[in-house]
Protein backbone atom coordinates (compact mmCIF):
# COMPACT_ATOMS: atom_id res chain seq x y z
CA UNK A 1 0.00 0.00 0.00
CA UNK A 2 1.14 3.52 -0.77
CA UNK A 3 0.44 6.42 1.57
CA UNK A 4 -0.12 9.72 -0.24
CA UNK A 5 0.62 12.83 1.82
CA UNK A 6 -0.01 16.45 0.90
CA UNK A 7 1.37 17.92 4.10
CA UNK A 8 5.07 18.64 4.70
CA UNK A 9 5.79 15.00 5.44
CA UNK A 10 7.44 15.93 8.72
CA UNK A 11 7.02 13.41 11.52
CA UNK A 12 3.68 14.24 13.18
CA UNK A 13 5.29 14.55 16.59
CA UNK A 14 7.48 17.37 15.25
CA UNK A 15 4.87 19.19 13.18
CA UNK A 16 3.63 22.65 14.04
CA UNK A 17 -0.09 21.82 14.16
CA UNK A 18 -3.29 23.07 15.70
CA UNK A 19 -6.82 21.72 15.90
CA UNK A 20 -9.56 23.16 13.76
CA UNK A 21 -13.23 22.66 12.93
CA UNK A 22 -14.61 24.40 9.87
CA UNK A 23 -18.17 23.93 11.09
CA UNK A 24 -17.39 25.64 14.41
CA UNK A 25 -15.34 28.41 12.78
CA UNK A 26 -17.63 29.24 9.89
CA UNK A 27 -20.92 27.83 11.23
CA UNK A 28 -21.05 25.97 7.95
CA UNK A 29 -22.36 22.44 7.97
CA UNK A 30 -21.96 22.10 4.23
CA UNK A 31 -18.26 22.97 4.08
CA UNK A 32 -15.55 20.34 4.34
CA UNK A 33 -11.78 20.20 4.61
CA UNK A 34 -10.50 18.99 1.24
CA UNK A 35 -7.12 17.71 0.08
CA UNK A 36 -6.11 17.16 -3.54
CA UNK A 37 -4.12 14.03 -4.32
CA UNK A 38 -2.61 12.56 -7.44
CA UNK A 39 -2.85 8.83 -8.06
CA UNK A 40 0.69 7.47 -8.53
CA UNK A 41 -0.23 5.29 -11.49
CA UNK A 42 -3.18 4.34 -13.73
CA UNK A 43 -5.48 1.80 -12.12
CA UNK A 44 -4.51 2.92 -8.64
CA UNK A 45 -7.26 2.26 -6.08
CA UNK A 46 -7.98 4.24 -2.96
CA UNK A 47 -8.63 1.88 -0.05
CA UNK A 48 -8.25 3.96 3.08
CA UNK A 49 -8.10 7.52 4.30
CA UNK A 50 -6.24 8.68 7.40
CA UNK A 51 -7.47 11.70 9.29
CA UNK A 52 -5.66 13.33 12.21
CA UNK A 53 -8.46 14.36 14.54
CA UNK A 54 -9.94 14.45 18.01
CA UNK A 55 -13.42 14.60 19.53
CA UNK A 56 -12.39 16.37 22.74
CA UNK A 57 -12.14 13.30 25.00
CA UNK A 58 -9.86 14.10 27.96
CA UNK A 59 -9.68 10.64 29.50
CA UNK A 60 -12.86 11.00 31.54
CA UNK A 61 -15.96 9.24 30.28
CA UNK A 62 -18.01 12.36 30.96
CA UNK A 63 -16.03 14.26 28.35
CA UNK A 64 -17.13 12.03 25.50
CA UNK A 65 -19.34 14.29 23.38
CA UNK A 66 -22.76 13.39 22.05
CA UNK A 67 -22.52 11.10 19.10
CA UNK A 68 -22.57 13.10 15.87
CA UNK A 69 -21.72 12.30 12.28
CA UNK A 70 -18.78 13.29 10.19
CA UNK A 71 -18.96 12.84 6.42
CA UNK A 72 -16.24 11.72 4.00
CA UNK A 73 -16.46 12.22 0.25
CA UNK A 74 -14.13 11.20 -2.55
CA UNK A 75 -14.45 13.29 -5.73
CA UNK A 76 -12.64 13.22 -9.04
CA UNK A 77 -10.71 16.11 -10.62
CA UNK A 78 -13.99 17.63 -11.86
CA UNK A 79 -15.55 17.27 -8.41
CA UNK A 80 -17.90 14.50 -9.48
CA UNK A 81 -18.84 12.39 -6.49
CA UNK A 82 -17.20 8.95 -6.42
CA UNK A 83 -17.99 7.83 -2.90
CA UNK A 84 -19.43 9.09 0.36
CA UNK A 85 -19.93 7.74 3.85
CA UNK A 86 -21.10 9.16 7.14
CA UNK A 87 -20.48 7.74 10.58
CA UNK A 88 -20.26 8.78 14.20
CA UNK A 89 -17.12 10.60 15.28
CA UNK A 90 -16.91 8.86 18.64
CA UNK A 91 -16.29 5.48 17.03
CA UNK A 92 -13.03 6.72 15.53
CA UNK A 93 -11.70 9.68 17.47
CA UNK A 94 -12.25 8.96 21.18
CA UNK A 95 -8.67 9.13 22.42
CA UNK A 96 -7.12 11.35 25.10
CA UNK A 97 -5.03 13.06 22.42
CA UNK A 98 -5.52 13.67 18.69
CA UNK A 99 -4.86 10.57 16.63
CA UNK A 100 -4.13 9.80 12.99
CA UNK A 101 -7.05 7.47 12.44
CA UNK A 102 -7.38 5.08 9.50
CA UNK A 103 -10.83 4.69 7.96
CA UNK A 104 -11.18 1.86 5.46
CA UNK A 105 -13.15 2.46 2.27
CA UNK A 106 -14.36 0.08 -0.39
CA UNK A 107 -11.73 -0.08 -3.12
CA UNK A 108 -12.29 3.03 -5.29
CA UNK A 109 -10.52 3.38 -8.65
CA UNK A 110 -9.16 6.92 -8.97
CA UNK A 111 -7.35 8.33 -11.94
CA UNK A 112 -4.94 11.21 -11.94
CA UNK A 113 -6.18 13.89 -9.52
CA UNK A 114 -8.81 13.29 -6.89
CA UNK A 115 -10.04 14.93 -3.69
CA UNK A 116 -10.70 13.56 -0.22
CA UNK A 117 -13.16 15.81 1.62
CA UNK A 118 -13.81 15.59 5.34
CA UNK A 119 -16.84 17.39 6.82
CA UNK A 120 -16.22 17.63 10.57
CA UNK A 121 -19.77 18.99 11.07
CA UNK A 122 -18.68 20.53 14.36
CA UNK A 123 -18.59 17.10 15.92
CA UNK A 124 -14.77 17.08 16.23
CA UNK A 125 -11.56 18.81 15.24
CA UNK A 126 -9.00 17.95 12.64
CA UNK A 127 -5.31 18.79 12.71
CA UNK A 128 -3.86 21.41 10.41
CA UNK A 129 -0.19 22.05 9.82
CA UNK A 130 0.59 25.74 10.21
CA UNK A 131 3.66 25.96 7.99
CA UNK A 132 5.17 24.45 4.84
CA UNK A 133 1.87 24.67 2.97
CA UNK A 134 1.94 22.58 -0.18
CA UNK A 135 -1.05 24.29 -1.81
CA UNK A 136 -3.16 21.17 -1.88
CA UNK A 137 -5.53 21.94 0.99
CA UNK A 138 -8.89 23.59 0.37
CA UNK A 139 -12.33 24.18 1.74
CA UNK A 140 -15.03 22.49 -0.32
CA UNK A 141 -18.51 23.99 -0.25
CA UNK A 142 -20.99 21.28 -1.19
CA UNK A 143 -23.83 23.79 -1.70
CA UNK A 144 -21.94 25.51 -4.49
CA UNK A 145 -19.76 22.60 -5.59
CA UNK A 146 -16.70 24.80 -5.35
CA UNK A 147 -13.22 24.80 -3.86
CA UNK A 148 -11.79 27.64 -1.81
CA UNK A 149 -8.17 28.09 -0.78
CA UNK A 150 -7.45 27.82 2.93
CA UNK A 151 -5.86 30.94 4.36
CA UNK A 152 -6.03 32.32 7.86
CA UNK A 153 -5.28 35.94 8.69
CA UNK A 154 -4.40 36.93 12.25
CA UNK A 155 -4.86 40.25 14.05
CA UNK A 156 -1.52 41.50 12.67
CA UNK A 157 -2.69 40.82 9.12
CA UNK A 158 -0.30 37.93 8.74
CA UNK A 159 -1.69 35.32 6.38
CA UNK A 160 -1.00 31.66 6.97
CA UNK A 161 -1.64 28.84 4.55
CA UNK A 162 -2.06 25.41 6.04
CA UNK A 163 -2.16 21.70 5.26
CA UNK A 164 -5.00 19.53 6.50
CA UNK A 165 -3.61 16.29 7.91
CA UNK A 166 -5.59 14.00 5.65
CA UNK A 167 -3.84 11.17 3.83
CA UNK A 168 -4.89 8.73 1.13
CA UNK A 169 -3.84 5.10 1.13
CA UNK A 170 -4.14 2.63 -1.72
CA UNK A 171 -2.40 0.50 -4.27
Amino acid sequence: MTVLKQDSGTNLSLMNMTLYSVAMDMDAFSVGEAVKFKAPNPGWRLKQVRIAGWNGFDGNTSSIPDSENFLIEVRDADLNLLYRMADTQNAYFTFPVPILRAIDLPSIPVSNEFYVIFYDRGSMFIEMELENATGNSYFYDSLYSGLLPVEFTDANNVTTQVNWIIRAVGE
Partner: protein
Amino acid sequence: MAICSAAIAAEEFSWSDMTILKQDSGKNVTEMNLSLFSIVDVFGLDGLDDGEAVKFKSPKSGWKLYGVQVLGWSGFNNTTQTFPADSNFLLEIRDKNLNLLYKFADVQNGYFLSYQGPFYGLIEIPPLTVPEEFYVIFYDRGGMVVAVEEDSGTGNSFLYSNRGLEPAQLITATNETIGINWMIEAIGK
Protein backbone atom coordinates in the same frame (compact mmCIF):
# COMPACT_ATOMS: atom_id res chain seq x y z
CA MET B 1 -8.08 33.04 13.60
CA ALA B 2 -10.07 34.96 11.08
CA ILE B 3 -10.70 33.36 7.78
CA CYS B 4 -9.66 35.12 4.64
CA SER B 5 -10.72 33.05 1.69
CA ALA B 6 -11.41 33.83 -1.92
CA ALA B 7 -13.08 31.68 -4.49
CA ILE B 8 -10.81 30.17 -7.07
CA ALA B 9 -11.66 28.91 -10.47
CA ALA B 10 -12.83 25.35 -10.30
CA GLU B 11 -14.56 23.24 -12.84
CA GLU B 12 -17.96 23.25 -11.23
CA PHE B 13 -20.14 20.24 -11.07
CA SER B 14 -23.48 21.29 -12.54
CA TRP B 15 -27.00 20.12 -11.81
CA SER B 16 -28.42 22.24 -14.61
CA ASP B 17 -28.22 19.53 -17.24
CA MET B 18 -30.04 16.99 -15.07
CA THR B 19 -33.57 15.67 -15.39
CA ILE B 20 -35.84 15.75 -12.35
CA LEU B 21 -38.26 12.84 -12.12
CA LYS B 22 -41.42 13.49 -10.10
CA GLN B 23 -44.26 11.15 -9.17
CA ASP B 24 -46.56 13.68 -7.52
CA SER B 25 -49.49 15.45 -9.19
CA GLY B 26 -47.21 17.84 -11.02
CA LYS B 27 -49.01 20.89 -9.62
CA ASN B 28 -47.05 23.86 -8.40
CA VAL B 29 -45.96 23.05 -4.83
CA THR B 30 -47.66 26.20 -3.51
CA GLU B 31 -50.99 24.95 -4.85
CA MET B 32 -50.70 21.40 -3.53
CA ASN B 33 -52.63 20.04 -0.59
CA LEU B 34 -49.59 19.14 1.50
CA SER B 35 -49.12 17.89 5.03
CA LEU B 36 -46.12 16.71 7.00
CA PHE B 37 -45.58 13.10 7.91
CA SER B 38 -43.21 10.93 9.93
CA ILE B 39 -43.58 7.18 9.87
CA VAL B 40 -42.42 6.89 13.48
CA ASP B 41 -45.17 9.29 14.57
CA VAL B 42 -47.70 6.88 13.07
CA PHE B 43 -46.23 3.45 13.76
CA GLY B 44 -44.07 4.13 16.81
CA LEU B 45 -40.82 2.18 17.14
CA ASP B 46 -42.03 -0.28 14.49
CA GLY B 47 -41.77 2.61 12.07
CA LEU B 48 -37.99 2.78 12.42
CA ASP B 49 -37.75 0.00 9.83
CA ASP B 50 -40.34 1.50 7.50
CA GLY B 51 -39.66 3.92 4.70
CA GLU B 52 -41.49 6.22 2.33
CA ALA B 53 -41.00 4.69 -1.12
CA VAL B 54 -41.57 6.14 -4.58
CA LYS B 55 -41.42 4.16 -7.79
CA PHE B 56 -39.71 5.84 -10.74
CA LYS B 57 -39.13 4.96 -14.35
CA SER B 58 -35.78 5.91 -15.85
CA PRO B 59 -36.29 7.96 -19.03
CA LYS B 60 -33.82 5.95 -21.10
CA SER B 61 -31.46 3.01 -20.99
CA GLY B 62 -28.21 3.82 -19.17
CA TRP B 63 -29.78 6.71 -17.26
CA LYS B 64 -27.81 7.50 -14.11
CA LEU B 65 -29.18 8.69 -10.81
CA TYR B 66 -27.08 11.51 -9.29
CA GLY B 67 -29.23 12.63 -6.40
CA VAL B 68 -32.51 12.52 -4.53
CA GLN B 69 -34.53 15.51 -3.36
CA VAL B 70 -36.92 15.21 -0.45
CA LEU B 71 -39.31 17.96 0.62
CA GLY B 72 -38.77 17.70 4.36
CA TRP B 73 -37.84 19.45 7.57
CA SER B 74 -36.03 18.53 10.76
CA GLY B 75 -38.05 21.15 12.68
CA PHE B 76 -37.39 24.20 14.82
CA ASN B 77 -38.72 24.96 18.30
CA ASN B 78 -39.87 28.58 18.26
CA THR B 79 -40.31 28.71 22.02
CA THR B 80 -36.82 27.55 22.92
CA GLN B 81 -35.32 28.76 19.64
CA THR B 82 -33.59 25.41 19.18
CA PHE B 83 -33.14 22.86 16.46
CA PRO B 84 -33.72 19.18 17.17
CA ALA B 85 -30.93 16.82 18.15
CA ASP B 86 -29.11 15.06 15.34
CA SER B 87 -30.79 11.88 14.16
CA ASN B 88 -30.03 9.76 11.12
CA PHE B 89 -32.23 9.20 8.11
CA LEU B 90 -31.59 6.35 5.68
CA LEU B 91 -31.83 6.45 1.91
CA GLU B 92 -32.05 3.33 -0.24
CA ILE B 93 -32.28 2.74 -3.98
CA ARG B 94 -33.80 -0.60 -5.00
CA ASP B 95 -34.64 -2.21 -8.31
CA LYS B 96 -38.14 -3.39 -9.25
CA ASN B 97 -37.54 -6.68 -7.44
CA LEU B 98 -36.50 -4.66 -4.41
CA ASN B 99 -32.88 -5.72 -4.59
CA LEU B 100 -30.71 -3.12 -2.89
CA LEU B 101 -28.62 -0.98 -5.26
CA TYR B 102 -27.39 1.75 -2.92
CA LYS B 103 -27.68 2.73 0.73
CA PHE B 104 -26.63 5.85 2.63
CA ALA B 105 -27.35 7.07 6.16
CA ASP B 106 -26.60 10.51 7.52
CA VAL B 107 -27.80 13.09 9.99
CA GLN B 108 -31.04 14.90 9.09
CA ASN B 109 -29.76 18.30 10.22
CA GLY B 110 -27.12 18.18 7.50
CA TYR B 111 -29.82 18.42 4.83
CA PHE B 112 -33.12 19.60 6.30
CA LEU B 113 -32.22 22.35 8.77
CA SER B 114 -34.37 25.46 8.47
CA TYR B 115 -36.01 28.09 10.65
CA GLN B 116 -38.80 28.46 8.19
CA GLY B 117 -40.26 25.07 7.43
CA PRO B 118 -39.92 22.37 4.80
CA PHE B 119 -37.70 22.74 1.76
CA TYR B 120 -36.18 20.40 -0.80
CA GLY B 121 -33.07 18.85 0.73
CA LEU B 122 -30.70 17.41 -1.86
CA ILE B 123 -28.86 14.19 -1.14
CA GLU B 124 -26.12 13.66 -3.70
CA ILE B 125 -25.16 10.08 -4.52
CA PRO B 126 -22.33 8.65 -6.62
CA PRO B 127 -23.69 8.20 -10.17
CA LEU B 128 -25.76 5.03 -10.19
CA THR B 129 -27.03 3.41 -13.36
CA VAL B 130 -30.59 2.44 -12.56
CA PRO B 131 -32.82 -0.08 -14.32
CA GLU B 132 -36.01 0.88 -16.12
CA GLU B 133 -38.00 0.79 -12.90
CA PHE B 134 -36.50 1.63 -9.55
CA TYR B 135 -37.54 2.71 -6.07
CA VAL B 136 -36.24 5.52 -3.90
CA ILE B 137 -36.92 4.71 -0.26
CA PHE B 138 -36.51 7.30 2.47
CA TYR B 139 -36.58 6.25 6.14
CA ASP B 140 -37.25 9.40 8.19
CA ARG B 141 -36.56 7.45 11.42
CA GLY B 142 -38.64 9.98 13.36
CA GLY B 143 -35.90 12.60 13.15
CA MET B 144 -37.78 14.72 10.64
CA VAL B 145 -40.96 15.02 8.63
CA VAL B 146 -41.56 14.44 4.95
CA ALA B 147 -44.14 16.35 2.93
CA VAL B 148 -47.01 14.35 1.51
CA GLU B 149 -49.53 15.40 -1.12
CA GLU B 150 -52.88 14.35 0.28
CA ASP B 151 -54.81 14.02 -2.93
CA SER B 152 -54.21 13.34 -6.61
CA GLY B 153 -52.35 10.10 -5.82
CA THR B 154 -50.48 8.83 -8.86
CA GLY B 155 -50.17 5.27 -7.51
CA ASN B 156 -46.40 5.46 -7.27
CA SER B 157 -46.02 6.08 -3.54
CA PHE B 158 -45.71 3.23 -1.07
CA LEU B 159 -44.77 2.28 2.45
CA TYR B 160 -41.78 -0.05 2.43
CA SER B 161 -40.91 -2.47 5.23
CA ASN B 162 -39.71 -6.02 5.62
CA ARG B 163 -43.25 -6.95 4.60
CA GLY B 164 -42.61 -5.44 1.20
CA LEU B 165 -44.44 -2.59 -0.50
CA GLU B 166 -47.88 -1.37 0.46
CA PRO B 167 -49.73 1.46 -1.26
CA ALA B 168 -49.46 4.75 0.61
CA GLN B 169 -53.04 5.67 1.39
CA LEU B 170 -55.06 7.91 3.60
CA ILE B 171 -58.52 7.11 4.98
CA THR B 172 -60.69 10.18 5.17
CA ALA B 173 -63.35 11.06 7.75
CA THR B 174 -65.94 9.73 5.32
CA ASN B 175 -64.10 6.39 5.15
CA GLU B 176 -62.85 7.05 1.68
CA THR B 177 -59.42 5.62 0.82
CA ILE B 178 -57.30 7.95 -1.26
CA GLY B 179 -53.81 7.57 -2.60
CA ILE B 180 -51.15 10.03 -1.54
CA ASN B 181 -47.82 11.12 -3.00
CA TRP B 182 -44.56 11.41 -1.08
CA MET B 183 -42.70 14.54 -2.16
CA ILE B 184 -39.56 12.71 -3.23
CA GLU B 185 -37.79 13.38 -6.53
CA ALA B 186 -35.05 11.57 -8.43
CA ILE B 187 -32.39 13.58 -10.30
CA GLY B 188 -30.12 12.26 -12.99
CA LYS B 189 -29.13 12.18 -16.62
